[in-house]
């Protein structure tokens, strides 16, 4: 929403800054900082520009690939590994359509390099459930029609799942703040709000 909006009223947090503020997404900056923080100047290993070998653990399976070091986790998942639940929309860490879990924390896959994610547990919407065996939050999305074109949906699913792990009994205000890092163009927010509340009310889903 408009620049200058007071933080407590923002809720939407449609900017990267606001995403970082949210409780569920705090790990994005932490993860990045810790990754960068461990490399003291003398220890830097130069990678690339030629493709390098990377091992990603995606939805529980080890996947080996060769990508240029500049390739994002999102492009590696989509173009190299055919994991297309995470969508490429803004490609600039704003819209959340590419949200995946990295070691249990939600991250924007477009804003992380594949080489940074090497060795970490990556979970996408496909890893949470399948059409025949939906995760409770996926089921709640279906039942509350929290999707229209569905392009933002897999990212939202991952964000909601992670949010509910951190906030098992959220208020509407907490939902609005905690899920401000994902955008939908069709306008499914009302359904998403209800899907999260319903899933929380049922309680005890397998994180």
């Amino acid at each position, binding site marked *: *929403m*408009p620049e*200058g*909006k*007071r933080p407590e009223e923002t*809720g*939407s947090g*449609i900017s*990267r800054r606001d995403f970082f503020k949210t409780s569920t997404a705090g790990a994005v900056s932490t993860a990045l900082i810790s990754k960068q923080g461990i490399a003291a100047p003398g220890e830097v290993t130069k990678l690339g520009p030629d493709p390098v070998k990377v091992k990603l653990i995606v939805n529980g399976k080890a996947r080996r690939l060769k990508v*240029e070091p500049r*390739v994002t986790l999102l*492009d590696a998942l989509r*173009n190299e590994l*055919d994991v*297309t*639940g995470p*969508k490429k*929309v*803004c*490609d*600039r860490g*704003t*819209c959340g*359509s590419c949200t995946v879990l990295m070691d249990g924390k939600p991250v924007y896959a477009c804003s992380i390099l594949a080489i940074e994610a090497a060795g970490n547990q990556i979970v*996408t*919407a*496909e890893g949470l*459930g399948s*059409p*025949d065996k*939906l*995760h409770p939050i*996926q*089921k709640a*999305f*279906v*039942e509350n*029609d*929290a*999707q*229209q*074109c*569905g*392009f*933002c*949906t*897999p990212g939202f*699913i991952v964000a909601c799942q992670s949010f509910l792990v951190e906030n098992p009994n959220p208020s509407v205000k907490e939902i*609005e703040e905690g899920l*401000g890092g*994902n*955008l*939908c*163009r*069709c*306008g*499914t*927010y*009302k*359904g998403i709000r209800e899907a999260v509340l319903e899933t929380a009310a049922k309680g005890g889903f397998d994180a």
Partner: protein
Amino acid sequence: MPEFNWPESDRRWRIGKHRTRVDGPAKSSGAAEYTYDVKLFGMLYAKMLACPHARARVTSVDTSAAEAMKGVHAVRVIQGPGTEIKWAADDIAVVAAETEEIARDAVNAIKVDYEVLEHFVFEEDLDKAPEVNPAQEQTTGEPVQAFSSAKAQSEGYYGCRVVSHACHESHGHVAHWTDDEHLTVFSSTQAVTGLVGQFSEALEIPAANVRIICQNMGGGFGSKFGADRWGIECARLARQTKRPVKLMLERGPELQIAGGRPSTFARVKTAVDADGNLTGWDSKSWGTGGPSGTGSPPLPYVFEVPNRKHQHSSVPANIGPSRAWRAPNHPQACFVTMTALEDMAAKIEMDPLDFFLKNISLTGVRAETYAEELKLGAQIMGWKRKWRPRGQSGDGPVKRGLGLSLHTWGGRGHQSNCEVLIHPDGSAEARVASQDLGTGTRTVIATVLAETFGLRVRDVTVRIGDSRFPASGASGGSTTVGGVSSSTRRGAINALEILLQKVAPELGVAPEELEAVRGRIRVKASPNRYLTWKQATGQLGVNPISATGRNPGPGKLIDSGVGGIQMADVSVDVETGIVKMNKMVAIQDCGLIIDMLTAESQVYGALTMGISYALSEERIMDPVTGRLLNDDMEFYKLPGIGDIGDLVVHMMTGPGYDERGVIGLGEPPVISPGAAISNAVANAIGVRVPYLPLTPDRVLEALEKGGAA
């Protein structure tokens, strides 16, 4: 011939109920495949070079460095030397390469020289426009006399900016030549059938050799009817390289050249008589939709003021050409009209609800519907309890206000063909070359098929999104639901008739005495005499029943013309200028509703999209460079989950509505939000903020100026 109609309300088992969308599980689990997700063996990635200037002549293009790069398979110049470019981000060249990264490097390696020309991108400043298309003028009645004899007059200035479609899935295609003469294109499109001819003509191959596939698509909103020049180039790259090629627009060009709703600015005068009856309207409006200007918004909107004059000038500007944005021209016309009327109501110190109701007969054939909807909306909103006269909302810095608006749309079903199959094993399917934009088209077809056969929705299969299925219209103008529901209904009734004829002898009655209900083919007069659906279809032998249905066709299944009203409740902080949505109420009719859940979702979505263009969304053009300043999603601002407030949707159904048949819903509810929210803000803060979106700076400026434009 069987009768083609919808079942009576007490005999609708599936239609009109809240049922979850059939593709919901695939979408929420990430399994649904979109064009952007398609990956074919050996596929290359294409990227486009976009012009950085708003107006320029291409003087030279050097692709040698790009072509020499390892991994680059083809470079094509789209607009070469001598071409005049008329908007920024227009496509200059395309590259196909092994990876996205190499393709981007190659695009960056193309050297283009331009002669930069004068541009014009700030159309609000009409006096500075180098070119203005002559004003179209329409006069009805005696406007001059109406104003001279008016009891009160109101004047105002109103403007809404160009907005982008901003589809989540950008425009694009995957082109695949299965041999030298046959092309398959995966396309993110609103027109599966319609794209066949566009590709075949451009690539000079028979239309019969072109196949278009679109299983899922990530939003169109009116911007995805064309193959687009970059789509044709994608197919040319594929032909040249003999490899499948994917070209999806990057976000910057997506926001600049792949969508856009025209702007509208207007100076409006209105007149009323002593009783508050609207007697006169006079408006001068202008706007742009790109280099060829824009069409005239229908002013005044819905209210046919007896004496009226409307002049509209179309202003060419160097911005990406506009595309149909949900309900073309209506949101702008609605914004200008409903704000001007609310300003008049404030001027004569009348509650706008009373003012609208007083003048409701001017809305014509839907007057009774509007009146009923306004009263119902007022009840749900608690209008009479909450509403305060303009500017009387307390002394604190946060002011609360209410606003309302109303709208109309046609929505008659388009041409559609459907093939319905009943297989000997009992499975049933409908085939239509339609597309599901996320509106629920698949679900609607499945619901109609299940209803007609007396089966569960999960027992039927819907196949859409492939041009090899029977031709169906483009999804635009709220025409799809009427088109596909009626073609499916007719096809299903035709197929069922064949089945009933087949099994009638066994049940010992004439086919007309049978009905398909709850998984059985039974005798109407004695429901205990029946065959199960499977027993019945088991008598078909080897071949399935194949029957077709089309729209238009016999029987009254569809209609057009709807009316809806919306009310907004906002809080405005007069110290910061921030507008916060408290609540929106939408009351909408659309005839017979096939699937209630997805219908309501359409309205919730429209309200959300409306809040977006009312509060935050606009193309911000830089007058100096002529470029879009906010060409990413960080600064092209869409609302988030916390920005929409409480949304209440009520669909008008039952007698008076259902018997009209099916009418489209995509456009109508997105028309009113801008006007309703602007009116609520004016009601809250005591002055009109003349522009949409209602950004904090504009709210503060309006407060400072005390309402003067």
